[in-house]
């Protein structure tokens, strides 16, 4: 292929830093700030197309990689056969035998192979069996079609309720459940089911592996957790820490979907690159991305709730089953969060929650915004709304009578000593949405509705809580490190492995450090997320970045400031350049220390499951088409307590984006399965909300600071995901009088409920 250009040659793409971009001149629309807060740090690069995502990076001489996958949900692999008529010299094939290190994707337990070995067990339809690479895509495609798997089928298991393989289980509670039910005037029971959903980041999974001169490997790609990938890479390729290097490229969304899967993809790319001795690009297309990567765990949640006539919930008995898919991945941790959150934000004296995560022959399920809590809280809020209906009490009033307040005790016996904002978010959202007034109106409309009515309007409310940061002693075990340095050249630099994937890490970190040091925002740099440069600050998950890692860099900055001020006797801002010239560089590393007074006992699973909780309330208004069963979500008000707002525009952006994902979860997003395979594994068939489907979203930020973090922040990313779906389903009920127990509340489910027919099959189960 030749390209000639006039007047000059096409500019080659280079990963060099983009030239600085300026805002328009005064008068041309330039505030130069985002409502008083700094502009997104990497915003100009993203807006001009110069930000480099993995697929934008050019590595001369790179080959293309592909994955050969199983096509059966459960089988024994007997052999991998190559078509003898094909010229295999143009292609490289890697199988399990070629793995220099351990054939496991390092995570919680070592059950998932990088590639299924001959003689081994295939446990899901998209399981990687062999890897191929070629210099061009056509050869690669042809070669892949010339490989055949010889297998012996085994019986698959698809129903989590019959699966006998348990990855994890919990049994927790407080009080006396029998006495609680004995004191109840009314008992309400219900079973709620949710299926698989896809994170659907718009940038597909992508990794490029480049062999290093020292015999090691550098992998650059789209990822949330550089050190998870680093650990997996070292183990699979048998490399030491220095020769395995992981670099985050600009990342086009994650939502949990780039927490664990990138480890597998990075290892795949690295195995091929090591074998060929050249760079290998593994860039998934949308179809492969949906078919093979992790989904939100399907769940089956059964509730039994005892309540007094006055509306006091006195007993909650809950059983929760998560479908983990074929391998353990993060299921035990997802399960523990789901279990702890299963009762919802209510102070109930007598509680018993049992739960388990089990294996089925579908691709492994994994992290997705909320991490088990949205499933559990959907069921909890459905139940509370149904209890309110049964008692004839307003859902708002019933919540007022049962919510956690300071001093409340959770099912893990955690005493909520501070930062409890359940009431505040509840009242703020209800007031802003005029919940009671509109509810009266929709009730009148319902009463006056005739058989010829075509549409129905409704309003619904849901309340939620979300434990901030890792569960239990996770943070203590991780011992994350983050640093702030003053370089010998006088630059102030943050070193942390926390990644930017749109949520704003690269903006809020410099903001926090600039505030602490008393210097302008632009004076603080942030080092690239490259494991050869930054320390292990833990994964970018669990909404922990602002609270935990943000806290570390503030403390590091504080120490840096003290040192410089002690040496110079002048305020940091005035003296740091001089200090650097005189004394050279100073670097402060800060390691996580447990928050004072926060204890958790892993043995008994009791104590402070989280250092603090965030609180959220959503009020949704819907219009249901009574002929088609289609739901239009008109508006959502979401009040979210984030501890402290660091950047109002970014924080609102998190609430708005999370709310729309929750609306999609409630109304349209559903993976359908056949024989353990996802049927709608394309964007034509897996639908997410468009700008036209999206409701007006009104984000209200509430601040109930957490005293253990120097800046009071508790995190924001996951909160809105917990409350949107039950609010929408409550609104559908308010409009139509029918309860939809399974997500999504699709037209089929709504029409079946309106007509009194059997609902379509439960979500998440393979036909």
């Amino acid at each position: 292929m030749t390209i000639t250009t006039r007047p000059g040659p096409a500019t080659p793409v280079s990963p060099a830093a983009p030239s600085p971009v300026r805002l328009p001149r005064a008068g041309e629309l330039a505030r130069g700030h985002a409502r008083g807060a700094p502009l997104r740090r990497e915003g100009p690069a993203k807006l001009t197309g110069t930000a480099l995502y993995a697929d934008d990076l050019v590595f001369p001489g790179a080959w293309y990689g592909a994955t050969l996958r199983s096509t059966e949900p459960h089988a024994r692999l007997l052999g991998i056969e190559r078509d003898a008529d094909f010229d295999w010299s143009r292609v490289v094939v890697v199988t399990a035998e070629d793995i220099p290190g351990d054939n496991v994707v390092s995570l919680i337990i070592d059950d998932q192979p990088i590639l299924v070995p001959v003689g081994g067990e295939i446990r899901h339809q998209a399981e990687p069996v062999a890897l191929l690479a070629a210099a061009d895509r056509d050869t690669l495609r042809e070669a892949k079609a010339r490989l055949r798997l010889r297998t012996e089928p085994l019986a698959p298991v698809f129903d989590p309720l019959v699966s006998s393989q348990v990855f994890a289980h919990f049994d927790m509670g407080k009080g006396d459940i029998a006495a609680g039910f004995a004191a109840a005037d009314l008992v309400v029971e219900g079973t709620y089911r949710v299926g698989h959903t896809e994170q659907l980041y718009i940038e597909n999974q992508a990794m490029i592996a480049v062999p290093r001169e020292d015999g090691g490997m550098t992998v650059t790609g789209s990822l949330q957790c550089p050190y998870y990938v680093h650990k997996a890479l070292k183990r699979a390729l048998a490399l030491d820490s220095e020769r395995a290097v992981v670099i985050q490229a600009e990342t086009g969304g994650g939502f949990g979907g780039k927490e664990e899967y990138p480890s597998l993809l990075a290892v795949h790319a690295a195995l091929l690159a090591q074998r060929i001795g050249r760079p290998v690009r593994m860039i998934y297309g949308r179809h492969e991305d949906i078919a093979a990567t992790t989904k939100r765990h399907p769940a089956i949640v059964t509730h039994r709730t005892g309540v007094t006539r006055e509306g006091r919930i006195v007993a909650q008995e809950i059983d929760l089953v998560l479908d983990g898919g074929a391998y353990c991945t993060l299921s035990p941790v997802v399960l523990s969060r789901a279990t702890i959150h299963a009762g919802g934000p209510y102070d109930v004296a007598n509680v018993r929650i049992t739960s388990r995560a089990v294996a089925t022959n579908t691709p492994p399920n994994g992290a997705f915004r909320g991490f088990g809590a949205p499933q559990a809280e959907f069921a909890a809020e459905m139940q509370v709304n149904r209890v309110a209906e049964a008692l004839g009490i307003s859902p708002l009033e019933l919540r007022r009578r049962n919510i956690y307040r300071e001093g409340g005790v959770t099912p893990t016996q955690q005493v909520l000593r501070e930062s409890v904002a359940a009431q505040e978010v509840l009242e703020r959202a209800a007031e802003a949405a005029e919940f009671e007034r509109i509810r009266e109106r929709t009730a009148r409309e319902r009463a006056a509705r005739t058989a010829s009515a075509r549409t129905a309007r409704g309003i619904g409310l849901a309340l939620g809580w979300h434990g901030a940061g890792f569960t239990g002693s996770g943070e203590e075990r991780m011992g994350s490190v983050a640093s702030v340095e003053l370089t010998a050249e006088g630059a102030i630099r943050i070193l942390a492995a926390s990644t930017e994937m749109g949520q704003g890490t690269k903006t809020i970190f410099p903001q926090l450090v600039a505030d602490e040091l008393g210097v302008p925002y632009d004076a603080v740099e942030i080092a690239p997320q490259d494991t050869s440069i930054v320390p292990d600050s833990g994964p970018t998950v669990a909404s922990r970045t602002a609270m935990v890692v943000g806290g570390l860099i503030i403390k590091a900055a504080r120490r840096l400031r003290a040192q410089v001020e002690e040496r110079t006797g002048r305020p940091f801002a005035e003296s740091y350049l001089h200090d650097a010239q005189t004394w050279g560089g100073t670097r402060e590393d800060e390691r996580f220390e447990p928050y004072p007074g926060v204890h958790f006992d892993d043995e008994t699973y009791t104590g402070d499951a989280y250092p603090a909780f965030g609180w959220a309330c959503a009020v949704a208004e819907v219009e249901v088409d009574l002929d088609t069963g289609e739901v239009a979500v008109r508006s959502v008000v979401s009040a979210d307590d984030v501890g402290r707002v660091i950047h109002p525009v970014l924080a609102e952006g998190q609430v708005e984006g999370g709310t729309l994902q929750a609306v999609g979860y409630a109304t349209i997003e559903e993976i359908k399965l056949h024989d353990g395979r996802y049927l709608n594994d394309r964007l034509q068939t897996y639908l997410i909300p468009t700008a036209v489907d999206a409701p007006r979203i009104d984000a209200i930020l509430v601040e109930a600071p957490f005293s253990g973090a120097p800046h009071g922040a508790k995190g924001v990313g996951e909160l809105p995901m917990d409350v949107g779906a039950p609010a929408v389903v409550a609104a559908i009920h308010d409009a139509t009088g029918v309860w939809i127990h399974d997500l999504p509340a699709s037209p089929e489910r709504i029409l079946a409920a309106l007509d009194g027919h059997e609902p379509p099959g439960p979500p998440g189960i393979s036909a």
Partner: protein
Amino acid sequence: MSYELRVNGVEFEVAAPGMRRLLDVLREDLGLSGTKEGCGEGECGACTVLLDGEPVVSCLVPLCQADGHAVRTVEGLATAGPQGPVLSPLQAAFLEAGGAQCGICTPGMLMSAEAFLASGADPTEEAIREAIAGNLCRCTGYTKIVEAIELAALGRGADTAPGA
């Protein structure tokens, strides 16, 4: 075969198969990797560019169809200034309103918005949402994107901006 196209005001002659996707020509042959691929089947809008001013999904446009036409991509929005590129008012509005989060939908979103602004249509919320209905964004919930386009359409400065 060789095809001629004008990309962001520069004439190119590209020798490539006529059925090669315009998206690949831009990204791989011309090195303009600002245009993104999210699905390759016309569903996500990440690859949106303007063809003679009209938004098209470049993953579904073969090179031969662009022959002799003008293509505008995200790289063509900012203008050259004495100290480097200056963001267009639309880009600046996205930056200030928070319309770009992960940024992967942003190039396509900007091109759809640019076409909408150029059409001179009344920038009601509904019209803006219609104009970007083919561009999926998973991060923002669209609220701040709509706000940014409104802001750019009104050509307003800071103090009259929504939420200011």
